[in-house]
């Protein structure tokens, strides 16, 4: 608490006022001391002490200030350099004139005090003293003679009467006091003009010596402060040799007029001597006082320099720190107003500026937040769209995509952001087709366009519907293009499947009904007329009816196949070991080993799949049959069946690959291979692969075909596996090995 009080005291303007007061007191003291005033004579030491204390206090304050400024300077604190410059300037401005005045004052002081003293005055005063002594000396000689005469008279008086005689003699001569002493100093008799004075003047120390030497003692003695007296002591001769010696001392007053003059001379001489003695101390004292005043002035000036530098610098320092804060992005900084001057105006302007900036940034922040919210909203909308969305800016660089787009294109589109369409196509050849088309429309500046495109990739044929729109060029939108696309493969497939299903149902219904009467009629014809006809006709009839029956049978099978395709029974899903099923199916074909070689390349750790066993068996039969039918003419027939566990794009599935050494698939058929009645084979219903595809899709899988480079074809199907993490971790990736086996 005391420290804070002291801090408040030293930081306020109180010390300045106090020190100025001390300075003035010190100045007053100087003038008072010069005039030798009684008042300051008494307080001289006290004032001196106070001033020295003030100087020490100032030294401490200044030392503290210098130290803190030095530390600030070293740490390169804000404003320390300017403060240092200001302080140095103030100090130079204040110290220089004061020092000059001090120097000349010292010179003046030395000469001034020396000029008080004049050797002639000193001599004259000395002479005046001598003259006074000489003039009193004459009087003293006269009085000595008188006293000696009295002594002769008193010698004769006996002791009993000596007091009376003494009084008579004193009255006669006009002496102020007469006393008779023994040589031991004992008073025998005394007479005084002043009745009130009880104790007579004692014998002086010199008197005894003079009397002992037989000389009278004559002396001027100061009776009181102003009054002089002539003191004469003579020996009283003893009447008898045995009687002891006596001393008569007489005091004579000096006449009033002479007394005044003598006192005047004495005072003047005394004062002059005193002053002469005090010449050096006076000089020292004046120099001391002057130095004190100088020191106080300089130190106060230095302190004031610090004080006002700090006060002047405070708003500037504030401004500097405020500017830094603004530069660092803190716009809430408000500076205290230092006053109503130009600095105050500056600080006020600064506050206004930061206020405006703060408001502006706040608005910008709110706008940005709104924009972000809108963006987020848009992203959410885009993410939940079932269509893929790509937007391009004016430079035709990819700007926005959504998750569906990635899903349809089976690509991570993050890497393509900011790339132009052509760059995207260069990075991934699969995008070439799309890129070319979009590029074409964009460069043509088509405002609205829609187009269907067929892609061929790992997952087979993909039909994509693209719609493009040019975005308007407004304040908030920079223009650009948006492309929305959908994978309509499944849609088309479903439509086609539905159509085929309808055809199959109708066929089954419309064709199956007349087939039985046709067959029955043909058999009846044969049965009735065959025996009646001649051999030639009979043979014709037999062949014709046989053909009819046979073809009807074939038609029935076909209708049955259609019927099967149109309404397959409901799936009965259960965990299934695909490898085992494949091995079982292979065994069914092992009897005609000579024409068919079925190679198996099965992955040991293939996880179970969830499937309908009957359907899967049908699927495998269809695939093998298809391969058999394709390569019917050639021998030997080689079929390779392989399974593999594949983990791709975060999904796991079992891959089944059927490779034959047939003629391969013609390029134009590759797209519609799995549609009903698309076949290049010499025999078969044309529904085998369509049924395979239907079964695969019922199980959530996909199927596609590849034509091998040399000869043969490969049909690949992917079936989702059961979620069984233990199997997944154990599995290895023997991809290359199995594949090479299969091809060989």
């Amino acid at each position, binding site marked *: 608490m005391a420290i804070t009080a002291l801090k408040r005291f030293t930081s306020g303007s109180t010390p300045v006022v106090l020190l100025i007061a001390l300075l003035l007191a010190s100045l007053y003291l100087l003038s008072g001391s010069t005039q030798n005033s009684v008042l300051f004579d008494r307080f001289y030491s006290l004032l001196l002490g106070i001033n020295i204390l003030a100087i020490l206090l100032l030294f401490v304050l200044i030392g503290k200030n210098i130290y803190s400024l030095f530390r600030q300077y070293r740490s390169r604190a804000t404003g320390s350099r300017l403060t240092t410059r200001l302080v140095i300037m103030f100090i130079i401005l204040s110290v220089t004139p004061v020092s000059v005045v001090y120097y000349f004052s010292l010179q003046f002081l030395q000469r001034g005090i020396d000029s008080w003293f004049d050797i002639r005055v000193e001599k004259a005063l000395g002479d005046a003293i001598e003259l*006074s002594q000489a003039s009193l000396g004459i009087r003293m000689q006269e009085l000595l003679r008188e006293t000696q005469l009295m002594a002769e008279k008193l010698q004769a008086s006996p002791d009993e009467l000596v007091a009376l005689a003494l009084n008579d003699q004193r009255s006669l001569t006009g002496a102020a006091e007469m006393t008779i002493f023994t040589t031991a100093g004992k008073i025998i008799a005394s007479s005084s003009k002043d009745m009130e004075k009880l104790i007579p003047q004692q014998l002086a120390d010199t008197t005894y010596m003079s009397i002992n030497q037989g000389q009278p003692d004559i002396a001027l003695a*100061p009776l009181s402060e102003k009054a002089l007296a002539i003191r004469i002591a003579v020996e009283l001769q003893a009447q008898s040799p045995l009687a002891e010696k006596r001393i008569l001392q007489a005091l004579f007053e000096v006449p009033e007029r002479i007394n005044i003059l003598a006192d005047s001379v004495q005072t003047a001489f005394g004062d002059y001597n005193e002053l002469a003695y005090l010449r050096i101390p006076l000089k020292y004292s004046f120099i001391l006082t002057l130095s004190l005043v100088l020191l106080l002035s300089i130190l106060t000036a230095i302190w004031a320099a610090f004080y006002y530098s700090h006060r002047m610098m405070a708003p500037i320092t504030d401004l500097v720190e405020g500017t830094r804060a603004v530069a660092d992005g803190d716009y809430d900084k408000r500076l205290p107003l230092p006053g109503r001057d130009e600095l105050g105006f500056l600080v006020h302007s600064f506050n206004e500026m930061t206020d405006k900036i703060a408001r502006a940034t706040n608005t910008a922040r709110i706008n940005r937040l709104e924009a972000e919210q809108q963006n987020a909203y848009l992203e959410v909308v885009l993410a939940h769209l079932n269509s893929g969305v790509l937007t391009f800016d004016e430079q035709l660089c990819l700007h926005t995509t959504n998750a569906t787009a990635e899903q349809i294109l089976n690509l991570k589109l993050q890497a393509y952001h900011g790339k132009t369409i052509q760059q995207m196509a260069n990075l991934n050849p699969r995008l070439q087709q799309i890129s070319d088309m979009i590029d074409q429309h964009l460069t043509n500046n088509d405002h609205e366009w829609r187009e269907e495109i067929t892609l061929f990739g790992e997952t087979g044929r993909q039909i994509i519907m693209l719609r493009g729109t040019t975005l308007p060029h407004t304040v908030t939108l920079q223009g650009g293009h948006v492309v929305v696309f959908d994978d309509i493969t499944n849609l088309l497939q479903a439509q086609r499947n539905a159509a085929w299903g309808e055809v199959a149902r109708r066929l089954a219904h419309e064709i199956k009904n007349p087939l039985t009467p046709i067959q029955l009629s043909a058999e009846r014809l044969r049965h009735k007329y065959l025996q009646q006809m001649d051999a030639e006709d009979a043979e014709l009839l037999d062949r014709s009816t046989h053909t009819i029956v046979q073809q009807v049978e074939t038609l029935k099978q076909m209708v049955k196949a259609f019927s099967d395709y149109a309404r397959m029974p409901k799936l009965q899903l259960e965990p299934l070991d695909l490898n085992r099923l494949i091995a079982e199916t292979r065994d069914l074909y092992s009897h005609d080993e000579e024409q068919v070689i079925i190679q198996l390349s099965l992955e040991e750790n293939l996880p179970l799949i969830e499937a309908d066993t009957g359907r899967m068996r049908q699927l495998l039969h269809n695939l093998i049959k298809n391969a058999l039918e394709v390569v019917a003419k050639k021998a030997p027939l080689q079929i390779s069946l392989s399974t593999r566990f594949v983990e791709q794009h975060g999904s796991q599935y079992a891959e089944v690959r059927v490779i034959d050494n047939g003629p391969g698939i013609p390029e134009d058929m590759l797209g519609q291979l799995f549609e009903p009645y698309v076949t290049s084979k010499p025999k078969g219903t044309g529904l085998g692969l369509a049924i395979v595809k239907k079964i695969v899709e019922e199980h959530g899988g996909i199927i596609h075909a590849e034509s091998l480079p040399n000869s043969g074809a490969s049909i690949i199907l992917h079936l989702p596996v059961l979620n069984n993490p233990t199997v997944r971790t154990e599995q290895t990736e023997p991809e290359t090995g199995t594949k090479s086996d299969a091809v060989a």
Partner: protein
Amino acid sequence: MHSFANQINNLSTRHHRIGGLILAVLLFPGLAQAAGFTVRSVETRMQDEVYLVDTNLQLDFSEEAQKALQSGIPIIILLDIEVEKLRSWWWNKTVATLQQGYLLLYHALTEKYIVNNLNSGAQSDYTSLGATLSAIEKVIGLPLIDSGLLDKEERYRLKLRVHLDIESLPAPMRPLAYVSSDWQLASDWYTWPLQR
């Protein structure tokens, strides 16, 4: 003296110079005797139920002080006496203080030293400074305190010192007097048990 100093200065080596200085001190013992005030003895006695003090002081003026006195500067010598009650567990308590002042003045016209007892106003004059100081040095029968004012159960002691009063010097001399040993003329406190 001056020629002697010159002789010393003429000695070339430092050792000789120091030796010379020692010789000078031996030859002039008066120079070695430092100026100062001392309380030589104090005695108390009781007379008519009043304690009286007899003391013997030694007052040696410095040359500077003598010179100042002869130049007409008045000098005051103060004799401070205190009576203290002795306390075991606390500071002693001062029960009485007494100050005796003597004003010394040189009267140029009569060439005499005047001593003015500031307490009684009695004035006496002397032809030499020695006689003047001798007159002050012997203080006999100075009444101190009435015995009735002292508790008979307690123990008391006397403290006494003599000093030159710097504050009474002319103002210009004081700053120098406060720092110069020439003017620091003061005895130590002399303590003496108060005799019953």
